[in-house]
């Protein structure tokens, strides 16, 4: 457990040092700013589509650091040294997922407040969006870490990771956006199910990918 915590602390410190919590937030707000320019200042239209746009932005923000999540630690021998100390690859994966989520999930939920204002969403819609993000972003973090491990050490890993991750994140996107409507309780439950499945499965898939990369 102490190993898990010190790993999370190290990874979080590294990601904050590399790009800060700022980069995903800026990206998120940039999308929220640009979207009204693209579709015009039609408030009802913005309110209706804004939540979905923010979910797309959250998905892509999770994907931003995907080439830095696993590969640097593989190349510099950190993963080997952790394994030598009897820390299983699955525990490493869980620590990376937790650190990645802490690095973009909560900052994004904060940024969703000004973003919802830019997109003319009302308070109730913002509440539903925040709830959905709280449930769905751990799943996105898990998926990002898994694809990062699967593509570690490959050429063009970033683009390949995107191609791998985007189709797998479709359930989170569908149910996340679906949960934005007032009658979205069912979608919220399905979002939780999809996110839970990703979070539960990712450590094993990531651990196997780390082991395979070690060969």
């Amino acid at each position: 457990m102490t190993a898990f915590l010190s790993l999370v602390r190290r990874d979080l410190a590294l990601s904050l040092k590399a790009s800060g919590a700022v980069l995903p937030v800026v990206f998120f707000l940039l999308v929220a700013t640009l979207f009204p320019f693209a579709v015009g200042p039609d408030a009802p239209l913005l309110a209706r589509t804004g939540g979905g746009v923010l979910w797309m932005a959250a998905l892509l923000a999770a994907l931003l650091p995907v080439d830095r999540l696993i590969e640097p630690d593989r190349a510099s021998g950190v993963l080997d040294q952790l394994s030598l100390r009897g820390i299983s690859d699955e525990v490493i994966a869980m620590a990376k997922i937790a650190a990645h989520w802490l690095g973009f999930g909560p900052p994004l939920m904060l940024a969703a407040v000004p973003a919802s204002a830019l997109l003319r969403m009302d308070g109730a819609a913002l509440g539903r969006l925040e709830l959905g993000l709280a449930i769905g972003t751990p799943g996105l973090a898990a998926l990002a870490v898994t694809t990062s491990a699967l593509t570690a050490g490959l050429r063009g890993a970033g683009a390949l990771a995107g191609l791998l991750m985007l189709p797998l994140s479709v359930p989170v996107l569908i149910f996340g956006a679906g949960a934005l409507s007032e009658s979205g309780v069912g979608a919220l439950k399905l979002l939780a199910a999809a996110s839970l499945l990703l979070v539960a499965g990712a450590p094993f898939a990531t651990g196997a990918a780390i082991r395979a990369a070690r060969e």
Partner: protein
Amino acid sequence: MTPARLAFDRVACLRGGRLLFEEIGFSLGAGDAALVTGPNGAGKSSLLRMAAGLLDPAAGTIDRQGGIALSDENAALDAHRPLGDALAFWAGLDGRGRSDVMAALDRMGIAHLDRVPVRMLSTGQRKRATLARVLASGAAVWLLDEPGNGMDAGALDRLADAMATHRANGGIVVAATHQPVGLDRATVIELA
């Protein structure tokens, strides 16, 4: 604490469908050392990774008792962090303290680089730092891959001294190298 032990029994190594070595057997107890030699690509690094448990042998069994510390071409130190902090991360995982890190840095003659970011270190300094990580770990079995690479005569003396002390304290040293590293009374494992 059970005495340190590292034993290979009829171990074979298969890499990329190619047989690197087979029928490798040796047994090392407390205070013993082994020198792994052989041309480039003979499987020296693979043998050390097998001893560390990072690679599975294609055949045979490996028995290890005691903690393992590995120094290879990867320093595994976070580039932007000060050297002392980067080493302290590993020491923390090993249940060791900051004082062990400082003692190890001192042993390798780089105590003055404690606050210098890892990315600023030269090749030789980085190698010394990698060895300091092994020294600070408190592990019984040291696996050193080309420990003398890029190091000057003074550093090599310090390495030989550290290895001798470690063996006197009941540790095991396995070094894979081309150059003499001052390891006396060592079992020679020659890979063809």
